[in-house]
């Protein structure tokens, strides 16, 4: 084995905080980097560790360069780290393309197949310690053997994972025909002296753990919330959420229809929901744009639907495979006319379950559309988490059980929610309408009817008691960070570090975006003197939304950065230290 001397001092403890380790595995299409990444995550989970895995690909539709991006940990984690402790290159492919995405430092180790040729300049320049290993040579000892399983064995050794659990993971994955070969190669890797040693101590927590992606979690939340009709038009990165539901719905006696386009999908949902069946569609920015007219109909006709928007880089077709929190504006303000509705954002991969389930419940209870702002980084990352608690709060729609001759579908009620007659119910017949209507649903252009229905639709949302789930608040002190959705992971990690460094920082993560929980957020900001709003986009969309809708007890500054690169805790530590220092009333964004 050869060692490339790095231009920088040799590695010591790695780049990650104690107890976590970031590993990237890269290679060309077909090299099997995703397989080894998934197996490692699985084995680590079996061994009692936590972790996450993301994927990145070059632009080729299939067969281009790819990398599995893992982070393993002794304790629960959610987000990505600052840099990679370890990069394993099965070949050098177009590794340049990943330079931004796989940050290396002089503390990083790079292992590569010694048949792969020269270490590329971009890797040399990082100062990482590079070492060639006879990966393909080792694999060749087994007929049909592939180097990726050598890597699995080596990494298992480096992490000190019990070999039996690694074998279990391999057995669970491969079919009969290939499992023996895979195991044989694995053994070779396990038998090799690991090129480094970074054992992580397993958690002693006893509960069940899940290996789950945000899209799976959202699908499960939809099912648990009561969704029984789904209309689907594929779009990255929402497709696998729809595919997951396609598999699970029939057993729950639900239906999925592949629609001809997003206009059809959203209108199918409205139709099914009019029939009393909770309905959902999922899409990404371009599809959401096409759905807006009908979402307005959902508002005006008070027919609940749920639309999951798995955000990707924008605008327009943008960067379909990368994450960005870029659709808050359209989700909140993208409807024509004045059309109050629900917008929520999951705070993490596993929280996609809770937030989607809650969104279904809220949509049903409030007879309004709910838009769920997930994003690619949540949707397509796999996370090892403690099994989330189940909640028994099924969606409930207020239905008119035995409506009489004076049934008024859009009656003005105390809480703005009017009992809805479901087709099939005798006596409840009404015509739902997107035209301005009176309490019976009959078209009206009278000023009083228009005003009454506008007020009602606003007040049923703003007057609703959303309880404690509007957001998550922790810590105290005179400085606060406000964030939402997928940014929460990096913000929390940064805040932890700031706290460890002695700064008291309050962390407020918003799950409910619309209606804005103004009072709750004001309460959470009590005593705060300066707050910074952190988000993963170019223009500070939540920051503008907060400013637009209320006065706050303290000045709000903005820090935001667009995709495609994920927010990392380290950059946030720097940004927050600066933004939260004592200078009052800063208003320009430092981004």
């Amino acid at each position: 084995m050869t060692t490339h001397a790095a231009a920088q001092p040799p590695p010591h403890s790695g780049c990650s905080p104690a107890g976590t380790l970031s590993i990237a595995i890269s290679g060309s299409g077909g090299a099997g980097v995703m397989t080894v990444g998934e197996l490692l995550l699985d084995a680590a989970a079996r061994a009692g560790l936590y972790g996450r895995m993301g994927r990145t690909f070059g632009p080729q539709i299939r067969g281009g360069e790819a990398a599995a991006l893992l982070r393993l940990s002794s304790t629960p984690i959610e987000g990505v780290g600052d840099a990679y402790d370890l990069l394993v290159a099965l070949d050098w492919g177009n590794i340049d393309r990943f330079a931004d995405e796989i940050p290396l430092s002089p503390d990083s180790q790079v292992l590569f197949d010694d048949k792969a040729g020269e270490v590329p300049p971009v890797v040399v320049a990082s100062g990482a310690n590079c070492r060639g290993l006879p990966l393909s040579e080792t694999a060749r000892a087994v007929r049909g053997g592939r180097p990726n399983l050598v890597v699995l064995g080596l990494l298992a050794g480096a992490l000190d994972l019990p070999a039996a659990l690694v074998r279990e993971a391999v057995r669970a994955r491969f079919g009969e025909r290939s499992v023996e070969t895979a195991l044989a190669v694995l053994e070779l890797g396990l038998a090799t002296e690991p090129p480094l040693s970074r054992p992580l101590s397993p958690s002693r927590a006893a509960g069940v753990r899940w290996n789950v992606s945000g899209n799976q979690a959202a699908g499960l939340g939809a099912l648990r919330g009561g969704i029984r009709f789904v209309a689907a038009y594929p779009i990255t990165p929402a497709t696998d959420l729809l595919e997951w539901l396609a598999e699970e719905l029939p057993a729950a006696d639900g239906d999925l229809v592949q629609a001809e386009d997003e206009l059809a999908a959203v209108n199918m949902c409205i139709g099914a929901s009019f029939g009393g069946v909770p309905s959902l569609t999922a899409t990404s920015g371009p599809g959401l744009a096409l759905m807006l007219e009908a979402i307005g109909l959902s508002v005006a006709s008070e027919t609940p639907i749920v639309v999951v928007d798995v955000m990707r880089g924008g605008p327009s077709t943008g960067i379909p495979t990368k994450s960005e929190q870029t659709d808050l504006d359209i989700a909140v303000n993208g409807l024509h006319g004045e059309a109050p509705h629900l917008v929520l954002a999951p705070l993490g991969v596993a929280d996609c379950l809770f937030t989607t389930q809650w969104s279904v419940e809220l949509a049903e209870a409030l007879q309004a559309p709910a838009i769920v702002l997930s994003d690619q980084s949540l949707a397509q990352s796999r996370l090892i988490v403690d099994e989330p608690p189940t909640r028994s709060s099924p969606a409930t729609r207020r239905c008119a059980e035995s409506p009489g001759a004076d049934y008024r579908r859009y009656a003005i009620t105390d809480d703005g929610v009017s009992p809805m007659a479901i087709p099939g119910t005798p006596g409840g017949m009404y015509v739902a309408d997107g035209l301005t209507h009176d309490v019976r649903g009959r078209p009206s252009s009278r000023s009083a009817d228009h005003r009454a229905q506008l007020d009602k639709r606003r007040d049923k949302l703003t007057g609703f008691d959303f309880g404690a789930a509007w957001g998550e608040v922790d810590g105290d002190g005179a400085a606060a960070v406000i964030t939402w959705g997928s940014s929460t992971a990096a913000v929390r990690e940064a805040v932890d570090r700031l706290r460890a460094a002695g700064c008291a920082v309050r962390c407020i993560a918003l799950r409910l975006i619309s209606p804005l929980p103004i009072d709750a957020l004001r309460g959470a900001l009590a005593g705060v003197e300066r707050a910074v709003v952190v988000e993963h986009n170019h223009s500070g969309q939540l920051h503008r939304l907060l400013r637009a809708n209320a006065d706050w007890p303290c000045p709000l500054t903005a820090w935001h950065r667009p995709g495609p690169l994920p927010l990392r805790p380290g950059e946030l530590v720097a940004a927050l230290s600066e933004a939260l220092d004592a200078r009052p009333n800063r208003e320009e964004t430092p981004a």
Partner: protein
Amino acid sequence: MSETLTARDYKSDVHPVWCPGCGDFGILNALTKALAARQQPPERVALISGIGCSSRLPAYMTPYGFHGVHGRVLPMATGLAVARPDLTVIAMGGDGDGFSIGGNHFMHACRRNVNMVYLVMDNAVYGMTKGQASPTTQTDWTGSKLTPTGTHMPAFRPLEIALASGCAFVAREFSGNPNGLAQRIVEALDYPGFTFIQVLSPCITYRPEQMGYKKIVHEDFEPTSIRTEAMARLLDDDGMTTGLLFRAPPAPWQGDPAPEAHRAPERALVVGGGA
């Protein structure tokens, strides 16, 4: 309601916004008659429409209804009919709604074959927006300020498109013959799957010449169950032939069947720990 239902039981007390003499009144009558003939309780019927003069119809009847957005009547009716196969779903709207902005859904609803009746109330004009050319408008019609020298396009052929898209029940009727239309609607209601009836329905305000329809419609379609024959029949059709053109053996939409055995989706996510 155990007594016999009459056409009147399906009529609401809302006064139509339609112009006196509008062909859509005939369709309203036919529909109430058809439902009475079928003795469908109004609460088990859903009338779904788009936007246009014609799409105002649901408000003039007593069943459940949804007056949706322009051009999306078929997706809405599809969602409802798939989710609630126990209901009688009747979709309707104008030629602009169905063939212009909604043309894509028309083709795909024909293919999907979800159980419903679809009535296009075809006046070859956009009535609601005051008289522009629709897809079924003749090339040389110069009555719209938006296309003052004609449409410069051949008229859209709804029956051919329906057949080419795999529609299993294809008919054309005339609103001036509400009994004939009612009878056809009854047949469509009885047919399991997607049924399409183009109803010629004069707009007396923007196409007053259509008052002459009654002189030129002729009931000459001979129903066939062979698609190629039906298509051939259309190739030299004058657009004024009425009757049932095509009726295939029923093969309505069926979604994915429930699996024999299925384990809770949560189980697939479990890894390590606990066990």
